[in-house]
């Protein structure tokens, strides 16, 4: 990029559009890594983020999984929180109003164990003024289907999204958050988009396990947990790349190991219109706002004046305009046989 003239960081336009929603910048918190924003407000003004994605909320209060709930792993961590939360009533009464008072853009993540629960949550959240979008966490067991996870089956995943889309007011975009623990994330993505998802959030955690060598038992109370952090970034970027190539035009939010502005730019280049910062917050409570600043600088250094110009850049030689180069994706031959 040396040939390009660098810009002043202040001249970079960070605004981005996500399924018709305009955001001041493409950086959000990742669900479950920022509560409902209150605690982070001690470190920076959450209003300065593109959006605040709240911890996945369920209909009823929920105590979650037994402790220990976390294990550190190389460049990452495992968590097994089990969606502990206050339930939708308390969330709408206490958490959401606070975010709106601050002037933040809330994206509300919902989780259910049945289609009916998702539908109810969609109605209640969707009709609350000020919600920028609904993020649907489908990495949950379906009690009506032998506890199989919605996100791991294209049909079940689509069912959730269609009821949520049906019961959410038009103006409120519905974002489907997908699990990477599937044979083909493109297949799931296609299926939820057909079911009405206005955008996709890629990726949720990878299923992992750690054995505690003192007790010689699984370290997590929940036995298995979700792997997050920079360790999984290459998997997340790959997911964004594949889906962006297979479904051009579908807005994607990239999440998984974003720690710096350079990481954020990598996701944009792979085809994401926005990114979320999760585990990095535990390392640096100010990470999300730092990523905004660093992304601005990364773009400026490369002479990229608008976030929009960076989106999907890695799919086509600089200058071209759309995600067109599909030649090297979705092809298992190229995509596998790494060794």
């Amino acid at each position: 990029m040396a040939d390009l003239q660098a810009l002043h960081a202040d001249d970079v336009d960070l605004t981005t559009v996500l399924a018709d929603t305009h955001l001041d910048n493409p950086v959000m918190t990742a669900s479950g890594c920022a509560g409902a924003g209150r605690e982070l407000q001690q470190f920076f003004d959450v209003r300065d983020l593109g959006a605040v994605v709240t911890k996945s909320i369920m209909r009823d209060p929920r105590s979650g999984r037994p402790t220990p709930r976390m294990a550190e792993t190389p460049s990452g961590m495992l968590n097994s929180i089990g969606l502990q939360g206050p339930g939708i009533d308390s969330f709408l009464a206490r958490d959401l109003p606070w975010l709106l008072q601050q002037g933040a853009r809330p994206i509300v993540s919902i989780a259910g164990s049945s289609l009916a629960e998702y539908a109810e949550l969609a109605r209640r959240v969707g009709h609350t003024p000020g919600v920028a979008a609904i993020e649907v966490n489908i990495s949950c067991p379906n009690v009506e289907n032998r506890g199989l996870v919605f996100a791991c089956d294209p049909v079940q995943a689509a069912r959730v999204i269609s009821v949520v889309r049906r019961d959410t007011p038009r103006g409120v975009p519905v974002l489907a958050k997908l699990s990477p623990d599937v044979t083909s994330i493109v297949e799931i993505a296609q299926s939820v988009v057909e079911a009405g998802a206005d955008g996709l959030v890629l990726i949720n955690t990878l299923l992992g396990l750690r054995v505690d060598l003192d007790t010689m038992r699984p370290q997590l109370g929940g036995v298995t947990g979700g792997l997050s952090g920079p360790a999984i970034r290459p998997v997340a970027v790959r997911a964004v790349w594949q889906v962006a190539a297979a479904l051009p035009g579908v807005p994607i939010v990239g999440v998984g190991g974003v720690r710096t502005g350079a990481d954020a730019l990598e996701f944009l280049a792979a085809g994401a219109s926005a990114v979320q910062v999760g585990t990095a917050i535990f390392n640096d409570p100010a990470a999300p706002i730092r990523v905004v600043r660093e992304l601005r600088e990364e773009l400026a250094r490369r002479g990229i004046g608008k976030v929009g110009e960076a989106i999907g850049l890695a799919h086509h030689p600089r200058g071209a305009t759309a995600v067109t180069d599909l030649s090297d994706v979705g092809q298992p031959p190229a995509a596998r046989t790494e060794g």
Partner: protein
Amino acid sequence: MTSTDSTFASSATERRPLQVTGEVFSIKRVGDYFHLTMVADGIAEQTRPGNFLALAVGGDTSAHLLRRCFSIYRARPAGVYGGTVEIVFAAGGAGTQWLSRLQPHDAVDVVGPLGRPFALPREPVACALVGGGYGSAPLFGLAERLRERRCAVHMVLGAATESRLFGTLEARRAAQSVTVTTVDGSVGIKGVVTDALPGLITRNKIEVVYSCGPMGMLRAVTDVAVEHGAWSQTAVEESMACGIGVCMTCVLPVEGDDGVIKMVRSCVEGPVFGGDKVQWDAVGTIPTGTYGAGTGGGH
């Protein structure tokens, strides 16, 4: 003991944690522990006894993302060197070993002060401060505050062996009486802190027992305190991923003033809890009847 509010002065005033790049002022070996003093502006001013710090470990190239948490041992507001904060730690795993190799002038990324401090009694009552191993670290600042309130301060310090005790000398200055216990009898009474505590409580009409140390000890200390009708204030140590209240990893079943048991975050609602409120035997489980348990598909 329906509510602690009547007994303890509230520490309501809004304080917020800071994130600062501290500088190592000194690091010394003390028995089996390391005593680390850092220049970290603004933190000392805000610190109350029982607060803790969260330190990033491994530097720029680190594979360890999670901060390590340590009780604040001492906090000195800005003087000649700018404000300093001190911790005492055991070098066990990768992160604490990295910290133990720090040199003066090295940079440390510090977040703090974090957590709820020890509640202080309204009246000048007699207090027992019980520390297990490095758990004594936060008790010295507490002793100072208690003495300011003209409370009688008695300290009980216990450990497996002498080298695992911290601050026995300082304790003599900080407290009216100091009792030391070691499991191997290498110094003091051969046994554990709760062997000495009952006698101490009766002799000195102790009304509040503060404790910090391993969970097992906190539980045992609480049992003794409750038996003797004394208040128990315990500083717990749960694994924490964020330390600031956003991740929900550090939870513990605690009974609220409404009598309802909830899984509460020990990093923001603790680490100090009324010992009688913590459901000690249910730690590591979700006790039945816990708020939000048994909903949402059976887990």
